[in-house]
């Protein structure tokens, strides 16, 4: 079904009027030739739709008793934390029992640091950052995509202890953090900002000069220093690509998000960021995104839930095993799932080909810990969402695999990619994902 303008407008307004939509008609927004994303009679058209990957995270852990369903299989009951998934129940696969073995390797740093590094990259914490590339970057690298942005990093809640490993979900390699864009306006401008031709040509000549400066420096430097400049060069190339492939019409289609006066109005910011990511994926600007709802070991306060006495991480260790403490954790984690469900719902609301964007997307939702208070790093509960590559959904599965096994399965089975080096801690692929 071709994308109807009215339907799109209706979808947009579901976001709470965060984004206003104007002309021209939306058929133009998806890509320049208008074929890739519109269904045609041609049976091969779907082949042009490329699957997308989103790595979704929020900090601290969960109250297992309110999160992990008792039953496995399709006839499971949504637990209190998972209740917001009701509208997308058939689109998600709830997974429990995943181990994160490299969180236990002796390393500097606290349990959050260690679990986070091992969760995102499968490798032990270096004392400065993640020990290797994060799963979203491994997937982006293997996709060798030619989209405008190789990947996007998005964030929402800011509060944390401020260390590198707390604040970043995506890592290009050991100690190489890829910071998330936290400000909706900046993200909008990056994705949909309109530039005129003289801007583009000036920008290009500026980057040419920068590139020449980089090249002239390289020979005189020692190896580690050259690595650093290589990284700069890579970023310059990505900038050039982003400029060269500026979408011609998309920027006129979406209006800028309204100013968010309260920069800690996170439920609102989360939804705007979700909308923007969904549109970035829909318009083919990127195929890979990471979304950090809260920081690792998050210190966010939650006034919209009525919890103001402490910060999220404090709650996970204060009276946490008592019924009252568990209920607090339940409410907090249910909010995380609400935001996740909103995002999945947005993907599902955007038509693509014969189905929706969600049909061509795989979202992996993880925390750094299972039960939060004891910093549990085995038996992690994750959620997969979407139908890319024929993912199995509508069920809860208990597994005895590592995070590496899961990522390897996602990369190779869902995205049909080949990871030459496998994935750290991966031993075998998991059956039952696709």
């Amino acid at each position, binding site marked *: 079904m071709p994308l109807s303008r009215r339907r799109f407008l209706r979808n947009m307004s579901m976001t709470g009027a965060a984004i206003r939509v104007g002309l021209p008609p939306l058929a133009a927004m998806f890509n320049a030739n208008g074929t890739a994303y519109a269904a045609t009679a041609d049976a091969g058209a779907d082949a042009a739709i490329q699957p997308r990957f989103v790595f979704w995270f929020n900090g601290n852990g969960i109250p297992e008793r309110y999160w992990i369903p008792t039953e496995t299989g399709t006839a499971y009951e949504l637990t209190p934390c998972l209740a917001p998934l009701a509208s997308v129940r058939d689109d998600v696969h709830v997974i429990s029992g995943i181990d994160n073995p490299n969180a236990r390797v002796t390393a500097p740093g606290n349990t959050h640091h260690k679990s986070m590094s091992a969760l995102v990259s499968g490798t032990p914490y270096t004392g400065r950052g993640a020990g290797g590339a994060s799963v979203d970057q491994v997937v982006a690298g293997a996709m060798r995509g030619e989209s405008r942005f190789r990947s996007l990093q998005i964030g929402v809640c800011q509060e944390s202890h*401020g260390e590198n490993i707390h604040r970043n979900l995506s890592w290009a390699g050991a100690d190489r953090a890829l910071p998330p*864009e936290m400000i909706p306006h900046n993200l909008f401008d990056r994705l949909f900002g309109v530039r005129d031709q003289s801007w583009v040509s000036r920008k290009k000549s500026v980057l040419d000069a920068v590139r020449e400066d980089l090249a002239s420096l390289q020979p005189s430097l020692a190896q580690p220093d050259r690595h650093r400049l290589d990284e700069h060069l890579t970023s310059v190339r990505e900038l050039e690509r982003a400029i060269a492939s500026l979408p011609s019409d998309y920027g006129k289609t979406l209006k800028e998000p309204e100013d968010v006066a309260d920069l800690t109005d996170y439920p609102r910011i989360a939804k705007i960021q979700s909308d923007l990511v969904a549109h970035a994926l829909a318009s083919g600007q990127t195929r890979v995104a990471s979304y950090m709802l809260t920081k690792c070991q998050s210190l966010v306060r939650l006034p919209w839930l009525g919890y103001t006495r402490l910060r999220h991480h404090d709650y996970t*260790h204060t009276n946490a095993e008592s019924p009252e403490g568990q209920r607090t954790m339940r409410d907090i984690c249910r909010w995380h799932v609400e935001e996740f469900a909103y995002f999945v719902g947005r993907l599902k609301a955007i038509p693509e080909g014969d189905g929706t964007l969600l049909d061509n997307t795989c979202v992996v939702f993880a925390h750094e810990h299972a039960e939060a208070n004891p910093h*549990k790093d085995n038996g992690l509960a994750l959620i997969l969402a979407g139908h890319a590559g024929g993912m199995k959904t509508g069920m809860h599965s208990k597994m005895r695999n590592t995070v590496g096994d899961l990522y390897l399965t996602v990369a190779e089975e869902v995205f049909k990619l080949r990871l030459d080096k496998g994935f750290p801690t991966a031993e075998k692929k998991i059956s039952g994902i696709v």
Partner: protein
Amino acid sequence: MAARIGTGCAGRTVCAVALIAIAAGLAATTTTRDVGAQQAVAGPISFSRTLYPIFEAAQCRGCHSDDGVASATRLHFPEPNATPDDIEAFGITLAVLVDRDDPSRSLLINKPTNRERHTGGVRIQPGSFEEQALTDWVRHLATLPAETIAAARDRLASASAPAARDQLLRRLTHSQYNNTVRDLLGDHSRPADRFPPEDFVNGFRNQLRTQGMPPLLAEAYGAAAERLALNAFRAGDVNGLVPCNPSGNRDVKCRDQFVKTFGRRAFRRPLDAEEVQRYTTLFTSQSAKTGRFLDGARVVVEAMLQSPKFLFHVERGDYEIASRLSYFLWDTMPDEALFEAAANGELRSGDGLERVARKMLGNPLARQAIDEFFAEWLRFDRALGSVKDRRRYPEFTPELAAMMVQETRLLLGHLVWDDGNFMEAFTADYSFLNADLASVYGLPAPSGEFERVRLPAGTHRAGLLGHASFLSSNAGPVETSPTARGIFVREQFLCQHVPSPPPGVNTEVPEPTIDRPLARRQRMQAHVANPTCASCHRLMDPIGFGLENYDAIGQWRDKEVIEFESARRNTPARTVELAIDGTGEIAGLAGGAFSDPKQIGRLLAESRACQECMVKQIFRYAFGRLETPADRETVKTAFTAFRESGFRFKELLVALVRSPQFLDGL
């Protein structure tokens, strides 16, 4: 070799053959024959293979390392990547913890089993296989001749010789970027405040291993450069960046002059011919297009501000030293005088460097640089970002938080720039207050803004530990956090890293209940009752207990007040007042017990660990990395200079400038 083996192995300690050979640096691996000989006798065979794994499993390294909480003891484990030979040598140096007359009284056996009070608790179970292995090793060590032990010690020392240069280019920090564009372009807009924030690594934001160039940052540099260049010439050349009067957009001479003059300041060294060519071409490409000279200048500024030669420190030779001095002591680019000093070769000798450095310390720019160090070391970001419960602390606002930070800045600034004893930071019986802060402290309002005020006799408040900036940022929205305050003291003031709780441990602190209202300290008893928790929490909590008389925003309180919300609306909340026990100790510090917050500051100020930590912190900031064994000599030299000057901070800075690390840029 045979002779040494002879002296090393007496009686049943044939086992030591390989070890001693290794310790003396004579053999890297055990020969087959030696292994056979060792296995023939019961007892320790190879330290690295038998004993070392026991120590590692007991997690001794967590505290007993150069930056661990037991850094003041005689037991320091080698680096995690130590070679087996170094580990064997380390095993022999443990003889210092052995009582040769009565091995059963050795600290090496009685501390980890907690037979003698061990701050880290029981690490090796009495009566276990591990203890037996350790006892055998202790007995063996008791028989070793002094020269064998000395040889092992030498080997270990030489093992920590300087490593090969494993450095990466340093990038301008956000603070340096802001200051540099201010001095280069006259732009005060602080564009880096809107860049992706710098994250903390090793306690600072400038650690070079993680100073990368991710696409988002490159994009932010691009956007900032565009805006800065536009603003620089929006109203003509108001900041005098063009050193000549162009006769028109085709004035090649003026164009070249501009590229060379501006380029020298942007790249912090003269441009080479190739660069001049590149940027004049760029200039012309734009000025020819629009017909305006300043559009050419603008595009050059925009490009240079994104060049690696501006963003990274790639200068070499004299200009490299000039930049390093400037960014360390001023946190900004060199000025004309410093460029000239570099051009004249004045920075090539240690004495020349020192002369220039002392002069630079007289410039107000030095304050901004050292301020930035303080802001990161003391985590002012946390204080400024603190959020408190509005009902409980209505007076706490972002403005008040900024005043708290200002007080701390002023005290430290006073100590540094008025040549005070820097350790007074922990003991000062005066402070710099305004009316709002005085009210938090329960003192009469001073007549002026932030003027120096003597704290009244009988007050418990003294130095940094009494500053609201420290007390409030290490507390929750309502409650204090003795653990957080204790960790802060350990990490920032003693340079000791506290090990993390093992996974799977219940780390909860019970909330008070109306039926059982307990003070925070009592509620945290679980940390001490459970041995797994106690071994680490004993290091942190008791420091924080000593500060329990300060509430979550740093006000003095005689009682801990707990408010219980009423279950029913419109019924008043019930409050309970509990007595506060403010005694505590800094475990591991000789005479570390205290009964008053003032005494904590005194203990710190007088302890070598804290004094040396001041040196380590500025070292980490100055060089953008943690100190390694290869830096011990420099840290020691700087510490000596610092102490002998009566802890004058400027002398510490000068000592670092004169270090080989500074000259070599390591």
